């Protein structure tokens, strides 16, 4: 079970650039480290300034319940993450968490197939930690634009996953889109039952995976990345449209509270 959400201060313990402009931050906050599961996120207050008004949500990348440390990954491209990458060890960050639901795969699977595009890799280290003791095949399809953007592969291998990399420029692994590599892999399997896809990444990638999963009738769960104001269901600002409402009208769920993890066939993906 996940713990209650709390408003707390975490201490920055370590910050490293693990790939081009991709940072991993180690934060000390025992409640988060001990009660969070894969898919959940923390909503961090970055600055109390005029231009960065909201908190920013980050997937929990990994946890170490013994040391009380958890990790987040971020790409320093936005206004918020530009500030975050300059934060010094020992600084305190005000955050709310753990928030959201978790990946929840069916029992008795043969294989878990992770499909990640770019920073969509973030939630899956914790997923592999959560699954460490389970005897099932774990395969990671990781798509990036170029080798410079790759990260986490050693750790994923250590956690028992087999990694398949795709680069759009062909600098490593499969040359092309990760979804093409995935499609080839699935089509070659004699039987795609007892498998589940766990997916996170940019919308065009998600659309393609949705299509593949539908055609091959494989269950797929997706972690969506919406903009959020509160992160815990109070503002209703993060709607995700239901694909099959029980009437003709439009129906929405909330990414922060009902998600961020949804069954892929349950929702419509927006741009």
């Amino acid at each position, binding site marked *: 079970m996940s713990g*209650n*959400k*709390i*408003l707390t201060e975490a201490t920055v313990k370590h910050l490293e650039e693990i790939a081009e402009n991709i940072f991993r931050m180690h934060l000390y906050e025992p409640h988060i480290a001990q009660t969070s599961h894969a898919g959940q996120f923390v909503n961090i*207050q970055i600055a109390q300034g*005029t*231009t*960065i*008004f*909201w*908190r920013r949500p980050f997937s929990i990348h990994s946890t170490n319940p013994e040391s009380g440390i958890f990790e987040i990954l971020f790409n320093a491209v936005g206004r918020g993450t530009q500030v975050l990458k300059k934060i010094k060890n020992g600084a305190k960050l005000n955050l*709310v968490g753990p928030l959201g639901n978790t990946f929840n795969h069916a029992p008795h699977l043969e294989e878990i197939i992770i499909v990640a595009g770019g920073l969509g890799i973030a939630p899956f280290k914790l997923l592999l930690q959560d699954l460490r003791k389970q005897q099932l095949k774990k395969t990671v399809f990781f798509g990036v634009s170029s080798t410079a953007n790759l990260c986490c592969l050693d750790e994923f291998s250590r956690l028992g996953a087999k990694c398949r990399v795709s680069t759009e420029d062909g600098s490593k692994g499969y040359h092309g889109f990760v979804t093409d590599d995935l499609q080839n892999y699935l089509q070659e399997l004699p039987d795609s039952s007892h498998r589940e896809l766990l997916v996170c990444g940019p919308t065009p990638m998600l659309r393609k995976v949705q299509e593949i999963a539908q055609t091959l009738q494989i269950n797929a769960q997706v972690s969506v990345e*919406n*903009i959020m*104001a*509160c992160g*815990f*269901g*109070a*503002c*209703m*600002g*993060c*709607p*995700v*449209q239901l694909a099959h409402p029980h009437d003709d*009208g*439009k*129906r*929405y769920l909330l990414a922060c*509270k009902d998600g961020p993890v949804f069954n892929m066939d349950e929702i419509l993906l*927006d741009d």
Partner: protein
Amino acid sequence: MTDLSVKIGSLVLKNPVMVASGTFGYAEEFKDFFDLNQIGGIITKTVTLEPRPGNAPPRIAETASGMLNSIGLPNVGVEHFIIEKMPFLQPLSTKIIVNVAGKTGEDFVEAVVRLEDVDRIDAYELNYSCPNVKEGGLTFSANAAIAEQVTRNVRKVTNRPLIAKLTPNVTSISEIGKAVENGGADAVSAINTLVGMAVDLGKKRPKLSTITGGLSGPAIKPVALAKVFELVQNLSIPVIAIGGIMNATDALEFLLTGAVAIQVGTANFINPRAPLDILEGVRDYFDKNRIDGISSFIGSIKT
């Protein structure tokens, strides 16, 4: 310790710190963050007669010192509200104020009639002012005659205190305020959000699906202060202040300007414990400055 209780008509709040509609869900979302019974009152997310799905995404955009929203009043409708949301609120020992909106004047009346049988509702706030409803939430608050008539019709079906929530998106907010006072409102609350717009240069389109939305947060505090001041000067019923209140200083400024109570809105998203922090700050201020009696402080601004 200073007695912080204030009166809004027949409604007595143990302190003047409440939370604004649409920014506090149905309170349950905040139960992990602080003891909800500490604050003076909780105003629910707007309830309508029929369920509403709300607007398409994107519904929110961050702006300088604030945000825009175009949520579109999603809610489960009054029947489900009573069954699903009231049971959490009923056992609380703070005041429960249900915010109601309607497409027509009759909708307001019918929703209130339905809520009359429900225990533990201490007052209604009539949302005459949501800028995000296509059917024209604005017509109620932008037209004094209609606002007065709707208030009068709701007044006929309930003895519970009525608070009319006003929009700043009008030429004269005090004209509307006087109209609802004539219609029988016990108090007004102001302000709702200001119409605004944000543009996404990269995508070459507006940031909100509805093009414009409502601006809230610290960016609107000076506007809110001016509107509250204007209402206090012109009305004889109490004024409840809303707009950009982030901390105790903000809250005290509104009380000094003449508001009998305040509502914390957008601040709840940034600091989910803001209502309690603000209450403690207000209490400290009165204790430290040996102000005995909040009523002598309210409206004591020197002009």
